[in-house]
């Protein structure tokens, strides 16, 4: 039996290599000066916020587990530069950098991770379930893989609305081995949903090294199996990220369907705060930290005359003040009332 060739699914594509350097697509988009500065601002906002979070944990003022994304700043910062508040993200327990990149305000974020009633989720969700619809932070999940099927629902809504919004599903390399990944990418492709599947491939899933859990050398190759374009991107290079994110977003907004972006990166702080990192070598960790994209990009902005040292120092001061303000705000907030256990279970409050 031959399948009807007209109705055949689109062919999948896999590409590897730095699009910004090789300009493989022939027309790779590059961030202009303003965009570069904005990407850096978002990166620094993430890093300053992460640093402050770890400081508060060390001081014992935050008691919940914390999954730092230090080192992965380029990925969401570059994407967020190309997104609006109407574009949505579904992210994961390690997703605070995705939210900070999306310009989620820090006060409700901090109040939430401190379990206060003025937190964005009234202290009921905590760091693994932060939500901020105003900036498009729709879902934060603690279940590996689950960001993806839900992102499809927002994508379907965009088709129904006839709007041009895109939805980003953030996830990790380990998550690419779970069933939800497969089901979500297949559905998104069959339905041509405006969803971008962004895999932060940091080389580890908890303590498991990439190749010990993942059967393919490049996750982006899996796009071939879904008839969609897939790219392995240098997730630490804002130019390569920009070129691929731009193409994927354009494609999604044009109604052409989803894209899989595998963004190579590294998490400097291990899986969870306090992680002893015994499952990686000292050398690889040191090498990764030596290649920290944040100072490198900062230097590049200065070298290329996009910003001066003074400007960037001022930016940092401003961001640190914003973070400090959020911390002060959070710790001054009240704790939620126990009556909250009966609220938001359903729209209607559960009777006492």
């Amino acid at each position, binding site marked *: 039996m031959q399948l009807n060739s007209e109705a055949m699914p689109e062919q999948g594509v896999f590409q590897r290599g730095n699009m910004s350097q090789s300009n493989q697509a022939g027309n790779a988009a590059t961030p202009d000066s303003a965009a570069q500065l904005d990407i850096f601002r978002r990166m620094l906002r993430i890093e300053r916020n992460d640093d402050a979070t770890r400081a508060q944990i060390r001081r014992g003022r935050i008691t919940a587990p914390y999954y730092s994304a230090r080192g992965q700043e380029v990925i969401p910062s570059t994407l967020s530069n190309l997104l609006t508040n109407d574009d949505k993200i579904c992210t994961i327990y390690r997703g605070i950098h995705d939210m900070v990149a999306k310009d989620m305000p820090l006060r409700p974020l901090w109040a939430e991770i401190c379990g206060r009633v003025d937190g964005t989720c009234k202290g009921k969700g905590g760091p693994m379930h932060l*939500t901020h619809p105003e900036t498009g932070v729709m879902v934060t999940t603690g279940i590996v893989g689950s960001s993806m099927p*839900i992102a499809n629902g927002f994508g379907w809504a965009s088709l129904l609305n006839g709007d041009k919004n895109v939805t980003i599903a953030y996830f990790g390399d380990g998550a690419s081995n779970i069933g939800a990944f497969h089901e979500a990418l297949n559905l998104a492709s069959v339905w041509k949903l405006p969803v971008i599947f962004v895999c932060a491939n940091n080389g580890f899933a908890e303590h498991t090294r990439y190749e010990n859990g993942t059967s393919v050398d490049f996750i982006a190759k899996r796009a071939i199996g879904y008839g969609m374009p897939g790219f392995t991107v240098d997730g630490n290079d804002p130019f390569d990220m920009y070129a691929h994110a731009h193409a994927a977003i354009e494609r999604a907004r044009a109604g052409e369907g989803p894209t899989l972006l595998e963004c190579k990166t590294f998490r400097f702080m291990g899986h969870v705060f306090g992680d002893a990192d015994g499952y990686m070598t000292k050398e690889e960790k040191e090498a990764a930290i030596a290649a920290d994209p944040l100072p490198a990009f900062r230097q590049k902005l200065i070298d290329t005359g996009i910003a001066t040292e003074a400007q960037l120092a001022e930016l940092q001061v401003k961001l640190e003040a914003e973070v400090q303000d959020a911390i002060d705000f959070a710790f001054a907030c009240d704790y939620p009332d126990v009556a909250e256990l009966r609220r938001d279970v359903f729209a209607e409050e559960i009777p006492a």
Partner: protein
Amino acid sequence: MSTDTPTLDTVEMLKMTGQQAVSAALFQAMEEDPKVLVFGEDVADREGGGVMGTTKGLSTKFGDLRVRSTPIAEQSIMGAAIGAAMAGYKPVAEIMLMNFITVAMDMIVNHAAKLRFMSGGQSQVPLVIRTLTGAGWQTAGQHSDHYEGWFAHTAGIKVVAPSCPADYKGLLLSAIQDPDPVLFIENSQTMFVPGEIAANQGPIPLGKARLVQEGKDITLITYSGMVANTTAAAAELAKAGISAEVIDLRTVSPWDKDAVLASVEKTGRAVVVTEAGRYFGPSAEIAATIQETLFGKLKAPVRRLGGPYCAVPFAKVLEDAYLVQSADVVAAAKGILG
């Protein structure tokens, strides 16, 4: 608690099956509210409008974007329902049979049921999961189970289980407009049985039981596939001079405690009948609550009847033995009446 059957002679009554009632509710809901979506495996007309034909005609009328067939991927179905619901739509997702819900539990339990709470009320997930189940068709261990107890035990999702055409329509209309996730259980024994329904049957509130028949000696509490057998048992008991009150819960969670407790307070005796497994099942909550609330007012212990502790078997003779029969209800009732 009410019968919710219009009693005015002027109301035009129709005869239809539960399936037709579900179909009518879907047509009406999609017509009245452009946010209502229907999707699941084979639901569109290109695929025959469902393998049972329940959704036939919807995609032709409301278009391929609102009524969509999906790949076989229940996690993906539930995920899409959650996202669309959070984006302001009212998706009615079909999981063909309840046993297949086992591959989508994460989406339902960790996400649909919890997102409103975990987001402090920022997210709402007004979706409906329609799913068919029930023993009696010899489909054995993986196609017959009643797992509503799992979801009743899960905070944040309502569980509805109609037993007659009017309720199939009225409860589905309410479930679709409910601001929270609802599991809507279609039972294979009741779904294809014709019954009376008002031509203009409107929404029936969730959480309200239906008084099937009044009685004074004993209260028989049931829902879904077991309403028929239980009602038959009540008729049998009547012959023996026993007056049984029969309550169809209609909604398993939140269940109509007021109606049940008022009835048992009156009769002093209760039997709870479910198709779901008896052990650690929904009947336990009802029995435990009755004894907790009406201690000292009961004339007998609350009895529970339900599936035995095994998978649903294939052979007809075993399947019949698996299901609670009306004779079992009669025996239990007589047993506690002494």
